[in-house]
């Protein structure tokens, strides 16, 4: 029989049965004609079948300098993945700085969400590739991903005999499709879409009043604390997900501007000139990050291939 560590609560609910906190209302954007609740089939008459697109990806996560001050140094709590070995997807998780083993949570959540998306490929095809998909399908997808991620944290807590809070992490997801791109955001960090050659922030800012307030995949995630949405894939040429540490130099703190470097990075990814090594080098380059908080930095990039994949 498992015993909890003193003073800790161990959650034992099976991962696969966990119910996600209710999502906020759909944030499907005007770029995609949003079917009404009463007539979800309305969109099917205006969206043609589109061919599959080819994407390149690059990702990296770098430990922050503030983590190196501790003795022994703290591990990097960020995990980033840009996976084009199937439907192109990007996932970033940032473990809570004050949580003892959140690096384990971030790693498991990224791996688990990737696996879930691969398993759900037939559903994703109906949701993101089919011209007549409804926003309800995307909402169901969002709920499934969050429930699964919550369950992963529950499972870790049970396995390691710790409180689920110890594994909590943010979660950012991009899933590409022929008709639309799906995004999910739990906690802080930034999602970016390159549309018509311009990079824009997608989704809510994700912070509370104070700079270190956010929410996490974990036991305390509540209704209304996370968001999802869809964008018209036809006008997108690049997607990015990054932790708040990376955003310190790549996005204005009020989310009003994206650094010009992002367009260049995405172009480099599209042309297969920027890969994991180049993204790592950028995030690890000390001078560029001087004066920032020293937080961990992670970045996952997807760009429509402009050369053969």
């Amino acid at each position, binding site marked *: 029989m498992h015993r909890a560590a003193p003073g800790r609560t161990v959650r034992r609910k099976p991962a696969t049965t966990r119910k996600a906190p209710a999502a906020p209302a759909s944030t499907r954007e005007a770029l995609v004609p949003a079917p009404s609740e009463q007539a979800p089939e309305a969109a099917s008459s205006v969206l043609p079948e589109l061919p599959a697109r080819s994407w390149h990806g690059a990702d990296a996560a770098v430990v*922050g300098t*503030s983590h190196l*001050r501790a003795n022994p140094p703290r591990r990097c*709590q960020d995990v980033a993945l840009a996976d084009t070995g199937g439907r192109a997807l990007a996932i970033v998780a*940032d473990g*809570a*700085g*004050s*949580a003892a083993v959140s690096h384990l949570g971030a790693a498991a959540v990224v791996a688990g969400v990737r696996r879930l998306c691969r398993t759900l490929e037939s559903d994703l095809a109906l949701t993101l590739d089919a011209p007549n998909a409804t926003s309800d399908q995307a909402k169901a997808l969002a709920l499934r991903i969050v429930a699964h991620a919550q369950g992963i944290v529950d499972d870790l807590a049970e396995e390691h005999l710790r409180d689920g809070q110890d594994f909590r992490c*943010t979660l950012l997801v991009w899933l590409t499709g022929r008709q639309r791109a799906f995004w999910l955001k739990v*906690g*802080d960090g930034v999602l970016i879409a390159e549309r018509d050659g311009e990079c824009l922030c997608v989704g809510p800012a994700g*912070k509370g009043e*104070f*700079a*270190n*307030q*956010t929410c996490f995949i974990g036991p*305390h995630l509540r209704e209304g604390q996370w968001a999802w949405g869809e964008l018209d894939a036809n006008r997108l040429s690049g997607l990015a997900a990054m932790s*708040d*540490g990376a955003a*310190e*130099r*790549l*996005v*204005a*703190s*009020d989310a009003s*501007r994206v*650094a*010009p*470097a992002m367009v*260049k*990075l995405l172009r*480099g990814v599209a042309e*297969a*000139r*920027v*890969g994991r*090594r*180049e993204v790592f*080098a*950028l995030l690890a*380059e000390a*001078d*560029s990050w001087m*004066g*920032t*908080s*020293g*937080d*961990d930095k992670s970045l996952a990039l997807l760009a429509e291939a402009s050369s053969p994949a």
Partner: protein
Amino acid sequence: MHGFDLTLLKNDLIENPTARCACALVLDTSGSMGGAPIDELNGGMAQFIDELRHDDFASYAVEVGVFTFGGSVREALSFTPAYQIQDLAKLQARGGTPMGEAVELAIERLAGRKAEYQKAGVSYYQPWLVLMSDGAPTDSWQAAARRLRQMAQDRKVTVLAIGIGEGAALDVLAEFSTRAPKRLEGMKFREFFQWLSQSMERVSQSTPGTGVPLAATDSWDAI
């Protein structure tokens, strides 16, 4: 992968302003603080500023404001980033203990600073207010205590109430904060301010989370 010059990106990054953490020191400089206590307080303050200035990030992130109550209430230092603080004038001990008025002034200045952050689009951490006294207030302090305590309950400010020596009215200090007041052991101002600078450094470097674990206070705490 070749042919991508990362140095070209350096000029294409964004210089976001550092997130700020305001720290209001509300200090008893009444006549009873005369002699060794005020000397030690001045020494501890100087050390506090010096330690913040030597931290790469905290020196920009932590903004210190000093409010004194000794005879009258004075704003000895308006909120200033640690790296910009030059010579802090030595505090002098004199007069009564108008603690309530000093707390009201600090609250007002904190609100003003927060509004400036918001107007400038600068993100900020939950501010701190450190209240230190060796006695009991000589003015009407109850309204200020209720207001500050409510702010602490609403998680708008972190309040640390510190009693200096055996004569401190801890029961009164307790009314200003949701945390139990602590008593400074002996003249351990330097130990206290060292702890405070370390705490501020932790806050300013905190990654997103629900709280910042602070160091133990046993180096200066008599309780």
